[in-house]
């Protein structure tokens, strides 16, 4: 006798006793539970139990043809369909969990690869925040400090498709670092990087980038832009913001691109705001946040240290009920406090 026949025999006996012996019903229910555990452990599915039950009923009430017996047929079919669907769903869920875990690995790897620290530069107060829209961040910022005290700052935004584009950013970082020299001008750096991006990165991936260099000896901020969202210069003396307008083509479009270099002078109390279009591509009640609104919020928190300021600006927008991030959000503030 195979195992399932043993099960059937045991179950039939149990059911018979349960139906006949009214006083002992509780104990038979308890036995049924134990049997169920044994079924579960042996991977016997619920529809199999229904089949055992049907056979048991057939044996116990041999001659009766009842609607009840017929209804079990329906229950059996329902359970089979249910289990099949359940298995499919479970598989999809498992796959999506695996994918999510893999994306997490990619996101962590990206964080490690693109790690940059906000440097301490005498006379400057620097704050930076970057928040990805999805798991991977297409925005990037980087600081370098030269031996002569010069500060180099990069802010960039990948134009292109998600995962490969975001991961390619690490290549740009290493290119940046490998040819960094404090004597190198922002315009030259962008010209070199354009070549790297044009040659080596996927054909549908482009990068907007702003490169700035501040020299504490001269208080001059020199910069060039490769099609990046314009930043702002807050002039304490006037109490106004002016747009840092620098024209230049996005990296990776043409083999040879040349960039104009500009400069501005920073005085005590001045600050520079660098951002990506994710800041202005945010939606509020279905409309875009205007650049003026961003400046108002930045000014509201201007009395705070730069790191706290950028954080508060992000929180300010993030805490609005009708706020919706549509792109990666990156904001850098560099203040001259002495």
């Amino acid at each position: 006798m195979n195992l399932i026949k043993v099960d059937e025999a045991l179950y039939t006996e149990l059911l018979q006793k349960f139906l006949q012996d009214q006083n002992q019903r509780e104990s038979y229910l308890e036995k049924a539970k134990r049997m169920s555990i044994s079924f579960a452990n042996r991977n016997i599915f619920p529809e199999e139990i229904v089949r055992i039950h049907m056979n048991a009923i057939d044996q116990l009430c041999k001659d009766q043809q009842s609607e009840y017996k017929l209804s079990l047929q329906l229950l059996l079919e329902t359970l089979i369909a249910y289990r099949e669907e359940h298995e499919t769903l479970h598989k999809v869920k498992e796959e999506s969990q695996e994918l999510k875990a893999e994306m997490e690995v990619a996101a962590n790897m990206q964080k490690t690869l693109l790690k940059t620290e906000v440097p301490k530069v005498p006379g400057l107060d620097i704050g930076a925040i970057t928040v990805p829209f999805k798991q991977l961040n297409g925005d990037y910022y980087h600081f370098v400090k030269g031996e002569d005290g010069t500060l180099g700052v990069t802010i960039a935004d990948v134009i292109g498709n998600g995962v490969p584009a975001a991961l390619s950013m690490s290549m740009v970082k290493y290119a940046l670092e490998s040819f960094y020299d404090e004597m190198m001008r922002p315009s030259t750096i962008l010209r070199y990087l354009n070549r790297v991006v044009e040659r080596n990165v996927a054909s549908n991936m482009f990068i907007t980038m702003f490169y700035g260099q501040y020299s504490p000896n001269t208080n001059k901020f020199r910069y060039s832009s490769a099609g990046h969202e314009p930043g702002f210069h807050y002039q304490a003396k006037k109490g106004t913001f002016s747009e840092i307008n620098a024209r230049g083509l996005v990296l990776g479009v043409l083999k040879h691109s040349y960039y104009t270099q500009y400069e501005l002078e920073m005085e005590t109390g001045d600050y520079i705001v660098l951002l990506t279009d994710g800041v202005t591509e945010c939606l509020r009640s279905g409309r875009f946040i205007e650049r003026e609104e961003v400046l108002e919020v930045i000014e509201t928190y201007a009395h705070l240290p730069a790191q706290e300021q950028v954080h508060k600006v992000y929180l300010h927008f993030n805490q609005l009920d009708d706020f919706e991030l549509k792109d990666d959000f990156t904001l850098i503030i560099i203040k001259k406090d002495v």
Partner: protein
Amino acid sequence: MNLKIDVSEKENLTIVELTGEIDVYTTPMLVEKLTPLTEVKGNNVQIDLANTTYLDSTGLGAFISAFKSSQEHESHLEIINVKDRVLRLFKVTGLHKIMNINSDETERSEKVNGKV
């Protein structure tokens, strides 16, 4: 989040009218339609953005790719009726200088979106 792509032929032009939003979700569909058109030598492709309500950086990437493809395959690409936010995006990225981008409302848009 929908994009309607209508392709029609008029004289020697292939007109691609884009209605709706060009973003991370709709761009793959656009690339699929647009790329083959730019790969035919001598083809004149005109993209009409009159009814495009939104363009994000993924969408912009698709247009740059189309531009590069048109250069490579000696076809022509023109983008017309570029307005407001979208026009600003082409200007900020420096693309308006190398790509053939036209807007009847250039004057007005500049005044609206120019200096802060």
